[in-house]
């Protein structure tokens, strides 16, 4: 299992479009993927789940990857966060 802490960089926060990017990226991998924020943990492959977090700019999330391709999944998803979902 891999754990990574990430911060929301873009201004608009984790709104619909970034949520969709995360879910799509995560769905390419077999590993289980969860995101937690303030003790609330959801399945990172569910768009409804990711949007439920309603994460604003500056908030930190804990990503957890577990499975055979966890390394690759973590790299791909963390990269999305680091790039601020290619938004301002």
């Amino acid at each position, binding site marked *: 299992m891999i754990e990574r802490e990430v911060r929301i960089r873009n201004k608009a926060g984790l709104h619909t479009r970034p949520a969709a990017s995360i879910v799509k990226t995560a769905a390419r991998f077999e590993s289980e993927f969860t995101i937690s924020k303030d*003790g*609330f943990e959801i*399945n990172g492959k*569910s*768009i*409804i*789940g990711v949007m439920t977090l309603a994460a604003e700019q500056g908030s930190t999330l804990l990503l957890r990857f577990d499975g055979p391709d966890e390394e690759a999944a973590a790299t791909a998803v963390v990269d999305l966060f680091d790039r601020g979902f290619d938004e301002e």
Partner: protein
Amino acid sequence: MKLKNKETKKTSITVGFLFEAAKKRFQLQQLNGQVGFDNVVKDKNLHRPGLALAGYVELFTYNRLQLFGNTEIKYLQSLDRSKRMKAFETLLEFQIPCMVLTNGNVLDKEMLEAAGRKGIPIFGTPLETTKIAYFLADFLDDQFSPQMVLHGSFVDVYGVGVLVTGRSGIGKSEIALDLVERGHRLVADDVVTVTRKGEGILMGAGTDLVKHFMEIRGLGLLDVRSMFGIRAIRFQKRVEIVVELEDWKGDQDYTRTGLDEDIIPILNVEIPHVLLPIFPGKNVTVITETIALNYLLKHYGYDAAKEFSKRLEGVIGAKKKGSRAINYFEHDFE
């Protein structure tokens, strides 16, 4: 199924939160203004401070919500003014989160003000002590209950709360949609918060943001409430059975008789669990409905697996084998 989800539990609520949530339901009124709204309640139990008013403060559970019923008020009224104030001030030495006066009772103005200066809010309610005690205890019990977020679709099927779980993309939402289409009611999709209520009852609900939205792969986000109307939704339901969907594995041992009931503990509540292998062409919706009906039958005392087993034992005992269900077709060729 293994649950790796985290259990969360509130350890305190502020008096302000309690008041906002409870003022309408329990007809609470502020008697000494907006003071002490940041005080925290950490205990789900209530306390009647009768003995403390009489001066016995050893073991006084001051950190609980203090409930003044007729007994406390009558006792105070029986004292003369200065003694009454003194008795009340005994309580004010402690960091009480808040006080509630029942039966529409009030306290002297100077007592209300003294409490206000100490940052102790006092609320009044016209409800009887037993009633408000029941309501407040239930409300606090709910607030301090353990909670968990589960990934699945939660539907009321013939009045049975069925939680459909399984890996992402296996088709939970599609089954929920299919069930809704057949007249059942969606409670929550994808993000289900479950709360243990009392001992042995598990309640499930959606989240405030999502309510009855769902995602169907290839379609996107849908609002079940506006699409199917009020009959297609509900806000809360007891979780009564978990149906876990799994890709068919040839070597997995699926139940064939249903004699052994599998259970899964969620927040220490044991919930019946059905592991359902799926493959293309299998009508999971009808099977889910059947699971709900079978649960109802069992609940009302009829267990098909046991009944069949009993019947078989009877036949084995009677040694009459392989006979037809009808012994003579008579002249009925329909």
